[in-house]
């Protein structure tokens, strides 16, 4: 059986990370126009949620929704009917810690809100509520390969259904003592709005295949440190191509193998 070409145009990009408040600033850093200065990640509030829901959201939901919103705004796209793929190695680390600490104490009474926010698909659920998005939404985990697995899922969804798909990959890490076991240093999120159909105006085009080649490293040591420390930041070699407007191939960490993302148009 021959494979479908897993190709799509990128209509919108969102990115938030340490010292990278949005895709615009990340683009200047990744293209070399601006030096990278690592400062703690700043997470914006989720404006789209009603106040009651907004108060209940933790860092992970705020990060995921913020990068998703950046990608959508750049594309001027509607969220309501857009299929989404949320990919992360863990759920909300702070909530996970609080639940485990409570369960290890004499009073095991959990907060109901904390419990329903602990699910891995919390960001997908709040995205639906915030954007009145009723289309298919999935939430995936593949440990350090979560970005590539999410991209593969979103590209396949777009190719098979012939419709756009929004990928949101994000990670916030854990407080101690879990931090020692899973040392994710800060929050990083990225969103790509992918569309397999011809775009109305020139947009970057990517094609995905699996490979046994080694993953690309970032030439700049602080960015390479970021890439290896946070699963969602495994996207950085691809984002570098997109920031520089360069065609070429980015090889990204996946599971036992790697994914190769060919950027064939990059206006």
């Amino acid at each position, binding site marked *: 059986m021959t494979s479908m070409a897993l190709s799509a145009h990128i209509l919108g990009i969102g990115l938030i990370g340490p010292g990278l408040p949005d895709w615009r600033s990340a683009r200047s850093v990744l293209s070399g126009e601006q030096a990278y200065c690592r400062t703690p990640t700043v997470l914006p509030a989720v404006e789209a949620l009603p106040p009651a829901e907004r108060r209940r959201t933790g860092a992970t939901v705020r990060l995921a929704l913020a990068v998703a919103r950046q990608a959508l705004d750049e594309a001027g796209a509607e969220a309501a009917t857009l299929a989404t793929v949320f990919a992360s190695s863990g759920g909300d680390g702070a909530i996970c810690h609080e639940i485990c600490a409570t369960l290890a104490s004499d009073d095991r009474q959990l907060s109901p809100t904390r419990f329903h926010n602990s699910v891995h*698909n919390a960001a997908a659920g709040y995205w639906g509520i915030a954007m009145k998005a009723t*289309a298919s939404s999935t939430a*995936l985990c*593949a440990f350090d390969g979560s970005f590539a697995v999410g991209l593969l899922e979103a590209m396949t969804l777009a190719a098979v259904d012939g419709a756009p798909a929004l990928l949101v990959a994000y990670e916030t890490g854990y407080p101690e*003592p879990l931090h020692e076991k899973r040392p994710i240093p800060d929050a990083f999120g990225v969103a790509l709005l992918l569309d397999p159909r011809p775009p109305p105006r020139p947009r970057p085009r990517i094609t995905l295949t699996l490979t046994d080649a080694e993953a690309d490293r970032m030439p700049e040591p602080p960015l390479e440190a970021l890439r290896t420390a946070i699963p969602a930041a495994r996207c950085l070699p691809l984002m570098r191509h997109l920031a520089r407007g360069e065609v070429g191939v980015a090889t990204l960490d996946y599971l036992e193998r790697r994914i190769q993302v060919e950027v064939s148009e990059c206006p």
Partner: protein
Amino acid sequence: MRPLALTHFTATSCIGRGLTETLRSLLKGRSGLTPCAFETVRLETHIGEVPGVDEVRLPPALARFDSRNNRLALLGLSQDGFIEAVSACAGRLGPRRVGLYLGTSTSGMLETEIAYRQRDATGALPARFDYAATHNSYSLAAFTQRVLGIEGPAAVICTACSSSAKAFASARRMIEAGLIDAAVVGGVDSLCLTTLYGFHSLQLVSRAPCRPFDAARDGISIGEAAAFALLERPAAPGTILLTGIGETSDAYHMSSPHPEGLGAQAAMRQALESAALAPRDIDYVNLHGTGTPSNDDAEGRAVTAVFGPGIAGSSTKGATGHTLGAAGALEAVISALALRHGFAPGGLNITEIDPSVGFQYLRESHRRPLARVLSNSFGFGGSNCSLVLQRAD
């Protein structure tokens, strides 16, 4: 969609290890729910605990993956010749052409809960605690891939209680795109304190064995299960086919379904449409039917709206408990058994069917040929997935 065959499948839950015991329990209407005496849990409730999970030993080479969840996974994989069937398939197609898509909600969370009780004076977790191989959701796939000797694309789907139904959807897309030729799909979720105390905090847990669609139902009974299927392109007549999938989001509330079940309706309609079937073509609906007042009310309305009053349906959670991230796969396997052996499973623990139920809720298992079945799975975050399974003849 192009149909896929469930060429092999298996299930292990509190009603049985493997298909023979599961079938016998379903036909006899035997529930596996028992009063909760799990670990150190002090809650007055019933649970669907799989006997013997603690006694399972992982192969020494995979010792770091040791967790209740991976023990349950291995127990489940070891039934019905499933490992051998997958090995043969991987031998035929090549291990890289067989994908792995599994659902879980809590993976090895129990190990982390226990490790938190064993923190030292500085607050550090014990040295033996292995985050990647136990706590992380992907540990389920990393472990299963090694047990089965398959090397294709893999992912763990974590959409709470729809996880392992949506695993079928992800696998189907990968096969459709030609990235793989076959996939192992399934779900494994095991008992842990987070879900027992968490659902309790939401006042969604019944003290008695859960009574889906009963007038006096008052919550879920949490269970655990491991269920798997091997999905391939259709082969011999008589096999069970996956012919339709519907996936939607409620966009309503994190832990309550839309009162009219609008998202559920859309998922069922989408599944029918992708199978090119009309509502009247479905012989039986395996309901999500958790036993909470709100789920069963919303799902009942949705089922009646889509299929009309004549449709037969039941929830098998009165027998198995709500196996959360494994429920979608477990109930897909139960649906496949119902098709293969010609029976519609009854919904247990009913005293009086909720008078507002507008369709034919089955209280007892009925022997009768079934051609097409729809199975519902809905999760927190408003994640809905419906599957259509049918006989290939």
